[in-house]
């Protein structure tokens, strides 16, 4: 899968030799706070992704609209308060119902693949999720790595779904 923008981050991290001396913006070893949605949006942009901070109409909860592999995804925030920020976040994407979607298909993915979890909901649509804690800080390179897992496994999923569709005899 494509990981060109993230490769740059990984390589930068690999050649970094003086972490103690460098805590400025752009330093992959610096510690970052993921509990604030506005901060996560900036970090996503720094990692080469678009990020638009929004609020859900019904609950007022914050989320970020972004995209990977040319396909939209959101980052949802949980257990948020003005004082403490949010305690966890969730990468989320959604694909409308197809005849070849099935529970055995989601199980084939979930039993063989890491990180990205896929689910058929009661309407037959496909949801994909990845959860992480936002309590305490992580290094910027760790956050970039997390996004990279989401992006590369979502890319893998498209390949998997194309193969499943083919195996199902071209049922669109």
């Amino acid at each position: 899968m494509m990981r060109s923008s993230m490769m740059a981050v990984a390589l930068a991290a690999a050649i970094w030799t003086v972490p103690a001396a460098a805590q400025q913006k752009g330093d992959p070893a610096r510690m970052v706070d993921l509990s604030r949605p506005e901060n996560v949006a900036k970090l996503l942009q720094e990692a080469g992704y678009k990020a638009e901070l929004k609020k859900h109409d019904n609950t007022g909860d914050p989320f970020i609209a972004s995209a990977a592999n040319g396909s939209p995804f959101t980052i949802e925030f949980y257990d948020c308060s003005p004082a403490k920020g949010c305690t966890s976040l969730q990468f989320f994407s959604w694909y409308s119902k197809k005849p070849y979607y099935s529970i055995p298909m989601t199980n084939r993915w979930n039993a063989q693949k890491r990180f990205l979890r896929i689910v058929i909901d009661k309407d037959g649509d496909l949801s994909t999720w990845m959860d992480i804690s936002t309590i305490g800080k992580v290094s910027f390179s760790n956050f970039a790595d997390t996004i990279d897992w989401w992006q590369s496994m979502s890319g893998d999923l498209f390949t998997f779904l194309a193969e499943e569709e083919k195996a199902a005899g071209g049922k669109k």
Partner: protein
Amino acid sequence: MRLIVMSVAAVMLGGRALPAAAQDRVPCGKDLVCANAPDTVVQAMIAARLQAKLAKDESGDPMVEVTGEPYRFDVYFYGCEKSRNCDSLRFEVSFAREDGATMALANKWNAGHRFLTAAVKDNGNFVLSYDIGMIGGTTKRNFADTLDWWSSMLGEAADFFAKELKGK
């Protein structure tokens, strides 16, 4: 609830498309928890009052064996080169094949719960897992919260199985 934990799970393939770029060769920062420094993982687990012991999997890569309630579980290290510089972790508990522990049950868990993925393996074992990227390391506080999510969701899973497998 009759699900029985398997003692050893088979390590799954879990690399990224370009594994050469994925290993974590940067030394683990001071006071951080990193997959390329397995002792930091074990120490963080012990600090969280888990009975954790460093071991090796069948390919010689590090793993952590944890005994305790509600289930014993393992933490596998992935993306290693020659068993070093590992880039990610996988928490996993594997249950022996059981009537009722089906793909439909796994999907029901996955649709209604966060963090842990449920799946039925080819051999019929029902597996709960959670994967986390560790490149660059994370703070002890963040890792402790990840451990708390894993442990509390395992507790929820025990309740879920008790309810769903009742009478089976």
